[in-house]
């Protein structure tokens, strides 16, 4: 069944206009990746309304094109401008920019493109291997496990938002409370609507996502202001000769252990909800630099310092889809917005996503595969042109993205109230950025809230009110409860000075 769906998705890309959607996504992803402050999540949030009129599979191709291309786009500005396009590309600047300054920009970009493509493919291959196992696991789940899995996912994300456990959990509570707005699915009673009929169906997902990730990001970018890179760096980048690309491609194959290690780090880190590409790329860079014989040359233009973070950064896409497609728990902001696109096409997020929407999931995997290669090829061809995009003033980007986002939100349902919701949530999202409450846990709780409540009520009905007793009688539920407790207490336990305690005891 899985192979059939995969084959069908590949054929669909080759037939008809799907490839055009994919390539449009790749170009958009490269563009949003190159411009610091924008990134894949903003691009996807902007795209949600556009996908409304598309077939679900075409929507997957468009979204997959963006998701697969953003990382490599960000590496171009990291190498040529010393300014990472997206946060995970920061590790690439350490050796990428020194290489460019030495006249080896082509070498660095060639290596980055190849490491990105191969890293992405390794991550996706791992995902494909994991899917049959995940399907069996999900088939053995009941309401109790679905509920506990949601709680575990939220706990894992809150814990992994480094240094913000408490604020992450508070944000998750806000997300859940927002998800409960509207008519209760069991009783029909309306909750938290303030008497507004508009809210009977709950807070709509797309305006909420657009506000949280497009509008709030633009407010933050507007306040940051300034130009992407200083004029001197920019003109130097535009005059750089991009030669030696072939050498860069060969360098990746020459240093294949670096590629492999980076890809594995990226896949594993990506699979842990909340960690994301920044941790993956820095971990990959530091582990490569620490174990290399020529470690003194890192930071001065060592090509392995480009290969390692780029492989990890792209491999994490496949990894982050593991919790998303297996259990319906988005592992990153990007996959949370991607789930929003699925919802728009009538696909319900949650653990059964893999069983009921195999076609779309394999479509996304195909899109990411083609996108990983396509982005590298297009990026190599248009690298110099893409750098010119960073010339665009922030004061042009901000109003244009804001108006297009709000227009897109309106077009979806033809309701101005949706535009108002996107604006309000956008301002609220900015306040979350400002006061350092992670938006990621809020949006994931918002997406999963309805499922969590429904599963909980189902467990109550099945267990005749003895929820805990029922859960403790099911082995998988017990494992999930233990995993949730460990997830919560592990970061705190790490901070206990065990050695000092045992020392004083002895």
């Amino acid at each position: 069944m899985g192979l059939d769906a995969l084959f069908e998705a590949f054929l669909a890309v080759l037939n008809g206009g799907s490839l055009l959607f994919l390539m449009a996504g790749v170009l958009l992803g490269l563009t949003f990746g190159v411009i610091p402050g924008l990134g894949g999540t903003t691009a996807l949030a902007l795209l949600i309304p556009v996908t409304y009129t598309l077939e679900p599979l075409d929507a997957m191709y468009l979204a997959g094109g963006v998701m697969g291309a953003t990382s490599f786009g960000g590496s171009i500005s990291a190498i040529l401008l010393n300014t990472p396009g997206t946060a995970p590309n920061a590790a690439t600047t350490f050796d990428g920019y020194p290489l460019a300054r030495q006249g080896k920009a082509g070498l660095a970009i060639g290596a980055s493109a190849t490491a990105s493509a191969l890293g992405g493919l390794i991550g996706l291959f791992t995902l494909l291997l994991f899917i049959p196992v995940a399907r069996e696991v999900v088939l053995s789940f009941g309401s109790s496990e679905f509920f506990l899995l949601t709680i575990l996912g939220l706990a894992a994300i809150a814990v992994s938002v480094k240094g913000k456990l408490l604020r992450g959990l508070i944000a998750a509570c806000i997300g859940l409370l927002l998800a409960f707005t509207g008519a209760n699915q069991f009783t029909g009673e309306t909750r938290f609507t303030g008497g507004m009929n508009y809210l009977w169906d709950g807070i709509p997902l797309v305006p909420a996502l657009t506000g949280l990730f497009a509008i709030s990001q633009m407010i933050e970018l507007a306040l940051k202001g300034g130009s992407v890179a200083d004029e001197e760096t920019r003109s130097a980048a535009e005059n750089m000769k991009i030669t030696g690309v072939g050498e860069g491609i060969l360098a990746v194959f020459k240093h294949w252990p670096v590629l492999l290690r980076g890809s594995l780090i990226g896949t594993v880190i990506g699979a842990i909800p909340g960690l994301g590409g920044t941790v993956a790329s820095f971990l990959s860079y530091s582990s490569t630099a620490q174990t290399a014989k020529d470690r003194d040359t890192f930071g001065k233009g060592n090509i392995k310092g480009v290969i390692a973070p780029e492989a990890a950064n792209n491999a994490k896409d496949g990894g982050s889809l593991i919790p998303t497609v297996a259990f319906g728990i988005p592992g990153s902001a990007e996959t949370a917005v991607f789930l929003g696109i699925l919802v728009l096409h009538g696909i319900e997020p949650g653990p059964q996503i893999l069983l009921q929407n195999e076609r779309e999931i394999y479509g996304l995997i195909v899109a990411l595969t083609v996108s990983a290669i396509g982005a590298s090829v297009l990026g190599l061809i248009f690298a110099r042109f893409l750098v010119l995009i960073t010339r665009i003033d922030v004061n042009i980007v901000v109003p244009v993205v804001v108006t297009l986002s709000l227009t897109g939100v309106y077009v979806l349902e033809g309701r101005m109230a949706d535009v108002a919701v996107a604006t309000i949530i956008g301002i609220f999202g900015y306040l979350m950025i400002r006061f350092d409450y992670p938006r990621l846990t809020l949006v994931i709780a918002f997406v999963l809230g309805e499922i969590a409540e429904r599963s909980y009520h189902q467990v109550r009905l099945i267990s005749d009110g003895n929820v805990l007793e029922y859960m403790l009688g099911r082995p998988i539920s017990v494992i999930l409860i233990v995993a949730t407790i460990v997830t919560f207490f592990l970061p705190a336990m790490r901070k206990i000075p065990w050695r000092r305690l045992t020392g004083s005891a002895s």
Partner: protein
Amino acid sequence: MKETPQAPRMVTSIWPAVLLLAFAVVMFLIARGYSATSARFPAMVAGAMIVLAVFDVWSRSKIPGAQVVETFGGTGFRQREMMHNPTFANQAECLGWIAGAFAMMATVGILAASPIFCAAYARLRGKLTLAVSAGVGIGVLIFQFAVFEWALNYELYRGLFFTKGGVNAW
């Protein structure tokens, strides 16, 4: 992410946590007013939020134990998402622009408001030249018209002044 040794006072102050605590209390009280089944989950979540917000307030205060809460609860501000520290006036102005964009769309319609907002923002806030600002506005107008009104044959909102039903039609 870079390490930030000191977060702005406004960010670390007790007030954001106090506001969230108040929000959680209000939500809890509202939730308690619903029937048992409808209230169960929201009340649980709001209750949990009250506890978490109390810890948040505690970690920001000078009450004894605040440091322990910060260490074990992960409430520090060393790895902030927003590294820069804009002034209050600058933030208010920027939020005003965003609210203004919505207000303009609501009153005169999306097609008219979009180019005006883009051009005005580029000119007044961005201090770009008149030609560039006008170019941005015209570009957005052409895009909105060509994609939505012409290609998709979709009539964008015409504004409260030009639509029957007023706010009720939203």
